């Protein structure tokens, strides 16, 4: 037995853009035309494009590899080739052992069947035998958390229940190779955390995982290594935090308007200079430079952090820090530097910036994403902030009467 679970060697995939002959009505005249007039069937050469080019990588048993990339980078095509739904145009692929793809949760559900019936149907589709499903039935139902509705047709389920049941079935397939594609974007936060935990625990039992996501936070929680795809090519395979920096660095610049005063520069620095990847608890410096086109007074600079759900988790301004309001003449610029302690748990955060006039409640140049930073953590903390927990006392005891009951 080799310890390679999955390997792609120089895989290429070519697609055709646009319509080909998709009805007899079009196809037959084209064929007869070719026979009688020596006319060629439309050659589609110009409309071909390579969705994947020279993709090579391998995943060992019990390893997890993340795949990130922007839309159209070829992530889904790569997964479809791995799960044998599509054939590569060129190149080889090896999969050792049972492969299960969590590509769309609940794809095989039939709305008229009950949850229970769908467990059997979907489980079989995902490659389990009937006996296996029967032996895991209680676990599946318990994990999904919808015991009371298990005899209800799934068409009456909420989308969250649907996703929970779907993931629960897929999570119990026990494959040797598990492919996960964006499925974790459904369901509430707690359920997502449980899914991540479930994936982490299957990795520990020796399953290899390939995780595709836009959400770098999920990728870092699961995969130490990540592959960055861009336009069908591998840009890099490296440690996830290194990749995350590159991926986030490639984000497009924020919009710029013709405003009376505007944010002319935002720069996030760490100890090593300009950077986007930090450890939880690190100190960061944010330089904000504003430039006025007209003479203005009573301005202050505002910055904030939002998490990847656009929820603002921190906000501060020069005025709120006790700095006097800024007055600028036309053409003048002003620069300030905020020193921040990044006490968030790991995740991706957008830095927003604005110029605000408090007495008129007026916002001059609001940017929701002046920069994006990625915070990693070696501590296994969950949630939005890092309280840097330690356990300072731990002992075993038997209850005696004088302890207060909670």
């Amino acid at each position: 037995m080799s310890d390679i679970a999955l390997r792609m060697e120089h895989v290429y995939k070519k697609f055709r853009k646009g319509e080909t002959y998709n009805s007899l009505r079009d196809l037959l005249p084209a064929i007869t035309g070719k026979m009688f007039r020596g006319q060629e069937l439309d050659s589609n050469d110009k409309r071909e494009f390579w969705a994947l080019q020279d993709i090579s990588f391998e995943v060992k048993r019990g390893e997890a590899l993340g795949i990130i990339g922007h839309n159209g980078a070829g992530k889904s095509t790569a997964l479809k080739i791995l799960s044998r739904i599509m054939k590569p145009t060129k190149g080889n692929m090896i999969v050792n052992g049972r492969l299960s793809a969590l590509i769309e949760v609940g794809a095989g559900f039939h709305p008229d069947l009950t949850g229970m019936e769908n467990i059997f149907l979907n489980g079989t589709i995902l490659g389990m035998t009937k006996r296996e499903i029967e032996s895991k039935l209680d676990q599946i139902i318990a994990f999904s958390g919808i015991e009371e509705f298990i005899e209800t047709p799934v068409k009456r389920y909420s989308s969250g229940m649907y996703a929970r049941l779907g993931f629960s079935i897929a999570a119990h397939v026990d494959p040797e190779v598990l492919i996960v594609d964006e499925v974790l974007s459904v369901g509430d936060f707690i359920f997502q955390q449980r899914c991540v935990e479930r994936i982490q625990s299957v990795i520990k039992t020796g399953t290899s995982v390939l995780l595709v996501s836009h959400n770098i936070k999920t990728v870092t929680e699961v995969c130490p290594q990540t592959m960055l795809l861009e336009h069908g090519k591998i840009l890099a395979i490296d440690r996830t935090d290194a990749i995350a920096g590159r991926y986030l660095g490639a984000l497009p610049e924020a919009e710029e308007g013709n405003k009376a005063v505007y944010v002319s520069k935002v720069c996030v620095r760490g100890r090593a200079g300009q950077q986007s990847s930090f450890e939880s608890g690190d100190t960061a410096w944010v330089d904000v430079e504003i430039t006025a086109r007209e003479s203005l007074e009573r301005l202050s600079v505002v910055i904030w952090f939002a998490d990847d759900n656009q929820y603002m988790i921190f906000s501060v301004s020069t005025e709120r820090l006790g700095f006097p309001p800024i007055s600028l003449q036309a053409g003048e610029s002003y620069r300030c530097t905020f020193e921040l302690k990044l006490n968030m748990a790991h995740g991706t955060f957008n830095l927003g910036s604005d110029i605000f006039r408090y007495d008129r409640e007026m916002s001059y140049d609001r940017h929701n994403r002046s920069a994006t930073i990625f915070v990693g953590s070696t501590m296994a903390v969950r949630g939005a902030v890092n309280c840097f927990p330690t356990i300072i006392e731990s002992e075993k005891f038997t209850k005696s009467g004088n302890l207060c009951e909670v």
Partner: protein
Amino acid sequence: MIAELRELYKHRELLYMIAYRDIKVRYKQSVMGFLWAILMPILIVLSGVVVRYAYAIVAHVPLKGADIASVAIRAVPWAFIVSSIRFTGSSLFSNFSLVVKIYFPKEIFPMAAVLACLFDFLVAFAALSILLLVVNVGWSVYLLWVPVLLATMILFCVGVGLLISAASLFLRDVKYIVEVFLTFGIFFTPVFFDVRMFGSRGKWLMLNPVAPLLDGLSTCIVLHQSPDFLWFLYSFVISVVVFVGGFVMFKHLEPAFAESI
């Protein structure tokens, strides 16, 4: 092909599961469940009786119970052929999300569609058996032909189903053409009539590969004779060719399914 058939065998539970789903859903949706299975056969038998009655009037011969029995024996399998070809044709489309997202042998869908129709057929066939008992057609050793003929018919339906389901993914108008054939096919198939009515020209009608099978069924059940062996062999060979050809073509096109939808 052997490796592919072995892979299919490995996934047999999935085949049953999907057929079971199709049956269950169909019976769940219609309150009439059982009636659903026998509705189309009943309609075909009744129209056959009307046609036979008209023929009896023109020919000045009385309509016999055996005639009705033989119409019924051919109408029920014909209903099976029509519905299984119709269901297989749309089977890949209606399971679209599974076809493009999860890997397993996709011929399971047309095969499950045939299996689900087979269930309806068995229900109708059970009802038909009661009718045959009432009409009292009797028993004979030739009834052993029935499973052989039915098996050939299933093989034929699966083969046609594989061809049509794959073709209709790539050529969107195939399903309309198939529908026309299914509607008018009954006039070219000995369901309402008997090929013997055409005398020596009857053999042209027997070229329809379904004809010797339907004719064989009524021959062995009603007339207690062995079906014409050469014609049966003809149907059998065609069914095998259609099945193998359909299977090979299906497997050849299968990798392109996900790209075409």
